[in-house]
């Protein structure tokens, strides 16, 4: 980029204007999320995508021509109610700027100072423009900020050989789909038949032989892992409880001293004392679906006869709680699916006060909006997020007044944290300096397929993760006979990554959490779907930037508690 020397301008005075001390630019660092290791949240829409953003009414996440102009600084601008900010993508930092810098920064590197003076003559004096220009230039040369550096190519950091190596040594987590059957018929479920590309419930059960081979495969391909994890997924896994018990015994036997972490996702309707004992003895991590108070939970979480499941769950969970209150508090994570008509106040109230809901962590997600007819029957008013704004304000209030304890959130904050905290916490204000983009870059969003949660179907087929549609071959990654297919994994990544080169210009690519499983539609990746995920992600990111700064304007130390937090 050729910078125009300020001194050579014709309109300005010959005297060199005072340099603006750089301290006037208040710099706030944000931390990269890193490769978003496909946590259990992977594949499901984040809450942010279903909640309204205060400032995003007029904001669409789409990238315009402006952003694609390589001469301009690679930045993203946003405003809170009080201040103007520029997010510098190369350095991954948030910089508070004056209104004039905010306005002219897009023209830096494009227009000369003279042209800027002319363009903004109705808003600013030549002196103000010169000052702003000088400020940008100085930050550019001294701090490396506002650079127009863009990656020139988007390319995944692995090739087939290195992927094959990883498949041989680093398969840490196995997810066994122990059955495709479920005793509930939740209306919003991906497997309820209302989703175009997903299988529907059916009575397929995994045989122990398949599970055993899966566990053997995990053992042989996790040599460099310090621990492994085995998850049981369904359907409702407890419909195949005897298999799970066999698996645990077998795995405990063959892994010897290597720790095995067990996980299970369950609707908690089929718990027996024996199962509770197995969970506690083997330190199972449970993801229990609980949508809120009885009336909300029972709206959609019903059995085949349309009867709500809340009472049954409450009874079972109490039994587990009585057996080991510590286990209950620490090892259970509630999965809360937000579904219309929304009532955030009631939800918060339930999770704050109900003895049943006293667990450390919970995960909030929206109903998957992709390829479904689920939302067709709701009215506009049903879809309104009642009480959310107030809840958000109250969470911000806690942050501003340092009342929110991250390590051990008070019960009154736990639901809010799950709802609003995640996005903000990924923008951790730390002092970790970030390198500008390398020439060939890849956003951290997508995972290494099959590596983080290798899904095994009852038939012994491997899929990228448990969220993959097993009805199509797209995300199939081999099977127990041929092993993990690196060529297929690579082909998937490539066809996804090469869908378009928009990532080069995307200001949210540092914090990308889009997922290729989410962009799959039957036998192919859908470019439009991907784009819509990207737009949603950018929109969330934009909203999170505003939220974080809104809080920090009131309490600059509000996120200090995150300084020591590692994002994996």
């Amino acid at each position, binding site marked *: 980029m050729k910078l125009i020397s300020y001194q050579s301008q014709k309109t300005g005075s010959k005297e060199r204007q005072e340099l603006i001390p750089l301290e006037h630019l208040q710099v706030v660092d944000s931390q990269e999320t890193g490769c978003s290791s496909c946590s259990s949240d992977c594949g499901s829409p984040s809450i942010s995508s279903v909640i309204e953003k205060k400032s995003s009414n007029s904001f669409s996440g789409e990238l315009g021509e402006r952003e694609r102009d390589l001469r301009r600084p690679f930045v993203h601008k946003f405003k809170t109610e009080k201040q103007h900010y520029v997010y510098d993508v190369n350095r991954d930092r948030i910089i508070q700027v004056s209104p004039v810098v905010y306005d002219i920064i897009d023209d830096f590197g494009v227009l000369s100072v003279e042209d800027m003076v002319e363009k903004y003559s109705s808003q600013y004096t030549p002196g103000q423009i010169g000052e702003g220009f000088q400020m940008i230039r100085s930050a550019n040369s001294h701090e490396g900020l506002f650079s127009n550096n863009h990656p020139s190519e988007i390319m995944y*950091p692995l090739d087939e050989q290195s992927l*094959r190596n990883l498949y*041989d040594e680093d398969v840490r987590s196995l997810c066994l789909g122990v059955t495709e059957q479920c005793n509930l018929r939740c209306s919003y479920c991906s497997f309820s038949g209302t989703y175009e590309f997903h299988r529907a419930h059916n009575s397929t059960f995994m045989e122990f032989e398949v599970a055993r081979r899966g566990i053997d495969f995990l053992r042989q391909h996790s040599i*460099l892992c310090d621990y492994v994890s085995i998850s049981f997924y369904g359907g409702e896994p407890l419909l195949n409880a005897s298999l799970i018990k066999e698996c645990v015994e077998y795995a405990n036997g063959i892994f010897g001293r*290597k720790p095995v972490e067990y996980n299970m996702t369950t609707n908690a309707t089929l718990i027996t004392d024996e199962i509770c004992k197995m969970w506690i003895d083997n330190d199972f991590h449970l993801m229990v679906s609980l949508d809120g108070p009885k009336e909300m939970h029972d709206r959609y979480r019903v059995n085949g006869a349309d009867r709500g499941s809340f009472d049954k769950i409450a009874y079972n969970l109490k039994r587990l709680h009585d057996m080991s209150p510590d286990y209950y508090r620490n090892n259970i994570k509630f999965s809360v699916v937000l579904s219309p008509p929304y009532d955030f106040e009631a939800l918060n109230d339930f999770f704050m006060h109900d003895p049943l809901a006293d667990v450390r962590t919970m995960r909030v997600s929206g109903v998957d909006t992709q390829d479904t007819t689920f939302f067709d029957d709701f009215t506009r008013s049903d879809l309104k997020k009642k009480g959310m704004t107030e809840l958000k304000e109250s969470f911000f209030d806690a942050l501003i007044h340092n009342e929110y304890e991250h390590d051990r959130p008070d019960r009154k904050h736990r639901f809010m944290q799950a709802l609003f905290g995640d996005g903000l916490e990924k923008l951790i204000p730390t002092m970790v300096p970030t390198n500008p983009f390398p*020439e060939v870059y890849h956003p*951290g969003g997508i995972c290494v397929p099959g590596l983080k949660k290798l899904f095994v179907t009852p038939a012994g087929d491997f899929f990228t993760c448990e969220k993959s549609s097993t009805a199509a071959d797209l995300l199939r990654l081999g099977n127990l006979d041929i092993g993990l297919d690196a060529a297929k994994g690579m082909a998937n990544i490539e066809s996804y990554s090469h869908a378009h080169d928009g990532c080069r210009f995307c200001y949210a690519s540092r914090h990308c959490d889009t997922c290729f499983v989410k962009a799959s539609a039957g036998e192919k990746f859908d470019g439009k779907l991907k784009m819509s995920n990207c737009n949603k992600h950018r929109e969330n990111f934009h909203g999170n930037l505003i939220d974080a700064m809104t809080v920090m304007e009131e309490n600059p130390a509000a996120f200090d508690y995150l300084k020591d937090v590692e994002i994996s």
Partner: protein
Amino acid sequence: MSEHSYRSTGKGVRVAVVDTGVSPEHPYVSNVVGGVGIGFDARGDVVYNEDDYLPETLWSHGQVCAGLISHRVPDSEIYSVKILDENGTGHPAALVAAIKWCIDNDINVVNISLGTTGEKWAAKLQAECVRATKGGMILVAATHVGGLISYPSVFPETIGVGKDNRYKGYEYGYFPARIAEYVAAGSDELALEIANVQTEPGTYVSLASGTSAATARISAVIAALLEEMPRLDLAGVKDELIERQTRLPLRRSLTANLPQNLRDDNFDMQMPDLSWMRRIVIYPYDMKTHPILAFVDAFKFQVDGVVDPIHSSAHGKDAGVVYSKEPLNVPIFAELNDIPTSVDTLIIGNTDALSRGLHEDILFRILTWTVENNKNVFSFCPVESHVYRNLYESARKKNLIWYSPSNFLSAIWNTNTQELEQDIDTPVIGIFGTSYNQGKLTTQLALRKRLADAGYEIGCIGTNPIHALLEDGNCVIQDKRIPRYISLGDQIAYLRVSMAETFRRRPHLILASSHGGIIPPKLYNTNTPDFPEDYTLPALAFLMASKPDAMILTINTIDDEDYIQRSLTTLEAISQGKVVALTFADKLVHKDAYSYKQRWGRRLRPEEISRLRKRYETTFGLPIFCPDIQEQQIQLAQHIIEVFAVD
């Protein structure tokens, strides 16, 4: 006595040899005209004894110095100022008195082939030197052979002389900003009989290992100069010396016709004898052991296979095909029991990751197998006899060899440092990096190979156990896991000895490849708990000890350019050498390069490599090479030859 063709013979120049005394009886020194012995009375006051300037023996240190002077300027007048006893020791106060005596006796050149590292007398000594210089006297003093600060050689009032055996006879060179600004030949045939004096703390250190002789040579040259231009003062002498210095080709030793007589074949090589390794198998085959295969020609043994217990997709295939795309006829085995019986030695790489992953002492398992199957062991990880005592006893009974980092270390510990010529006058190229596991060793081995192809003899030193496998290699182990780990404080001294050991063979060039510590910006890298906070310090010690003349910086292509720039600046600032090239691997390093698990990602495409080269060349003004590519190995070697070439 001697025949020479010098025009000036030192006529009328009075030269004092402040030393152990000089005898006129000596066949090489006939021009001794007087002198003084300096001692102390009972009260400790200085006593001048004009009759006592003769040495105790004819072959004393002072005699050798005087001989070297007389040989060049036979017509000069030599004065023997005796301040050292027969052991070569004396008191700093005597040196002060000696200079005083020289001033009083109108001496022109004072040869001081000695010095003190003690600071107590430095001020008095310097005051006397200042006085002498003002009177037009030229003081020539030897620098410390090990590079320590030694008085009076470091005073600006003296001409500090070091040794450099590339110079012959009375040739000398000038190297500004070094402690030894002037260098000349040390011991040669003429000076063969230099007394081997003992030293004691707080006393004079007699610099018998070469700088003394070099000092005498410079004194002689100055005496000759003063005959021609009697009015020259110190500044004038220095200017003339610079003007008349012998300009060696920048690196004479790198030219193809290195004089063979520079080689010192008398030394017992003390290189570990690895002839017991004939047919080997590597376990486990990974990034750490891959260079053995990549440069298999560098080793005398034959590689019969590799064991890769991790990557089942590679089992049964050819290691060359899997990792370098070219067949090597080296099969990949899945487990130890696949190893053919003809193999005599197992090279064990790093087993820590495996042990951690399997929650089992894999090293123990492997060692047990080797003992049961009668295989010798060369191990990258420490294999301590007291840890695996029973196995060790069994191995000993079977006459099996266990060779591991402690052995590399004891090879150096048992080195007689007195024997080592510590002035390394061979070009040293340091290879440093911005992280670990990024291709420093590959750079070194590639360069070694290509320079050898071009006819150069290379000495390799480095921290990788693979260095101990090289015939011309020397491994300076910086592995904290071995019991006799040398503390950081002593690392530099230890590394200097290793450098000198490498230099014994008189290679044309020494390639020194650092441990993977990061120099400099992340001095304390707290994000990697597996590496202690002094992770970088060993690399700094390596830099300071190897004193490279030129350096190659190995980078990761994901490195921030600022970071590379800071690394370059710091390397050059600390070493005072120059970074002459960058290298990088042909594979992408994963993003978590600086955390525990660094892995190779995809292979870079040819167009990407050429684009990156262009970009780095433009940014840093340095040529950059990818040593994984044969063509670029040759280019790198060519570049290094050019860097050291004669104009």
